[in-house]
């Protein structure tokens, strides 16, 4: 067990110029065999490993990462946490995740800086207003803390918003989830890694899986760049790189890998204290504790494995946000970056057993995976440990695509008449 982090340990270590801090996680060599192996040390994978060890007492397990842990989409997103979805199955998993986030710093003894500063989803057309009213009704009955607020209340919460009723897309109101917010993305990965490691999980970086080994219909091990590892249970959690890997097990995925980008401004003193999402114009914004405006938009419209995107989608997002928050016109873009997101046909994730015994897959989080990390890891660990879908994971099975049982959250997008 690791020594705990606290204000006291910080003070104690300060006296000694911080020489005695122990490693947050070990750097173990892979063993020849594990009871289970998670492929992909992003947030979802690390959370899965942590909960396998913590909830299901599976400690002879490893998590393999081809690069550095948390280096994929976990460290590249805009850190928004919310659970205000429309479909019951979506609400269930995102709300599980959100509620786990509330106590995650204490659970992991690592400050993930979950900041329930509130999430506002602007309504800028009558149609959008109707759609969010519907979501609010559904969410309220599902037990979520949420409400619709007026344009005036929006202005009070976000004073820098353009409240001109004659602008192109005037603010008609907003959906408000006060308990949504943001977290520190890297800390989530690091906290889970440290937590899993302290429970005995081998977190192995710079180890790429090149082949899923099968015997008949069963998983028997993994070929990696650091040798063969035997195991009968494999959880693949590799986001945008899931298709090529699953293909080695003969499974074709309903996934396309696209580039999603985000950007930050130079740091400024606080101007916006909650998360604002403007879906009609495709932009969302929050301000980090460092003072940077964190801005995200939509994906590029074609497959991309390069983590380097194109500019038009960001240009649209920035243009929309300049119109929505006019003071940002004279602020400057500091950095932009891209991630490879794994999109399914219905834009909802896959948490599933597969036709190969012992092979499980958790992917398809697309543009919104960060907010789901604790819930996703929790139910995927349960699914792997018990070899049956956790009730919350069940709707997200691969079989839904053959049954037409889609979980489409983009329904509010339909516009007609």
């Amino acid at each position, binding site marked *: 067990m690791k020594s705990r982090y606290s204000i006291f340990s910080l003070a104690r270590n300060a006296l000694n110029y911080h020489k005695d801090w122990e490693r947050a996680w070990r750097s173990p060599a892979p063993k020849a065999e594990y009871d289970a192996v998670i492929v992909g040390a992003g947030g979802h994978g690390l959370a899965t490993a942590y909960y396998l060890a913590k909830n299901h007492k599976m400690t002879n397990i490893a998590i393999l990462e081809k690069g550095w842990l948390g280096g994929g989409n976990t460290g590249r997103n805009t850190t928004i946490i919310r659970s205000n979805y429309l479909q019951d199955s979506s609400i269930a998993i995102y709300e599980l995740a959100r509620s786990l986030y509330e106590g995650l710093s204490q659970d992991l003894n690592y400050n993930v800086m979950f900041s329930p500063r509130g999430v506002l989803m602007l309504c800028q057309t009558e149609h959008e207003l109707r759609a969010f009213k519907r979501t609010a009704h559904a969410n309220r009955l599902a037990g979520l803390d949420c409400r619709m607020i007026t344009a005036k209340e929006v202005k009070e919460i976000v004073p820098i918003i353009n409240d001109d009723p004659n602008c192109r897309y005037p603010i008609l109101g907003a959906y408000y989830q006060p308990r949504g917010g943001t977290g520190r993305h890297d800390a989530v990965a690091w906290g889970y890694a440290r937590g899993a490691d302290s429970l005995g999980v081998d977190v192995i970086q710079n180890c790429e899986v090149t082949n899923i080994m099968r015997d008949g219909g069963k998983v028997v091990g993994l070929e990696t760049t650091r040798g063969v590892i035997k195991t009968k249970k494999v959880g693949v959690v590799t986001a945008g790189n899931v298709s090529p890997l699953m293909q080695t097990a003969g499974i*074709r995925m*309903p996934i*396309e890998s696209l580039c999603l980008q985000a950007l930050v401004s130079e740091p400024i003193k606080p101007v916006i204290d909650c998360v604002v999402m403007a879906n009609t114009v495709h932009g969302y914004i929050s301000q980090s504790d460092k003072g940077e405006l964190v801005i995200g938009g939509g994906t590029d419209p074609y497959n991309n494995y390069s983590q380097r995107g194109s500019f038009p989608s960001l240009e649209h997002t920035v243009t929309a946000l300049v119109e929505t928050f006019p003071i940002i016109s004279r602020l400057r873009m500091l950095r932009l970056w891209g991630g490879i997101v794994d999109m399914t046909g219905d834009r909802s994730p896959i948490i599933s057993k597969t036709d190969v015994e012992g092979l499980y897959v958790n992917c398809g989080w697309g543009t919104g995976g960060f907010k789901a990390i604790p819930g996703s890891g929790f139910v995927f660990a349960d699914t792997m440990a018990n070899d049956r879908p956790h009730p919350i994971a069940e709707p997200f099975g691969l079989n839904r695509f053959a049954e037409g049982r889609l979980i489409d959250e983009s329904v509010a997008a339909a516009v007609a008449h």
Partner: protein
Amino acid sequence: MLLVHCPVCGAEGDETDFHGGGQAHVRRPATHDPVNVSDEAQRDYLFIRHNAKGLHFERWRCDRGCGKWFHAARDTVTMEFKAYYGITELPPRELMEQATGEWAGYFKDKLK
């Protein structure tokens, strides 16, 4: 900002003048046999994608130009376009030979 070339009208322009139409050569089973389409075949048609890392084959439309659909071979890592070809055509032979993964399987019969 990709630079895209339309093999139909010869226009060359920014990706915003074009429309990416996803994976090429997806077979619509009902067109060929409307009666006998299994749930799995329908799923494959609607959802399963090659999602190749590297050489990939796609549909594009000259959206703001001549309005015609065409095919393109593109590397999804470097973003280089390798070839453009007609919407009813197969890719140039050397690209079919270079294809890997699921694409290699798809082109195997076509190369015969």
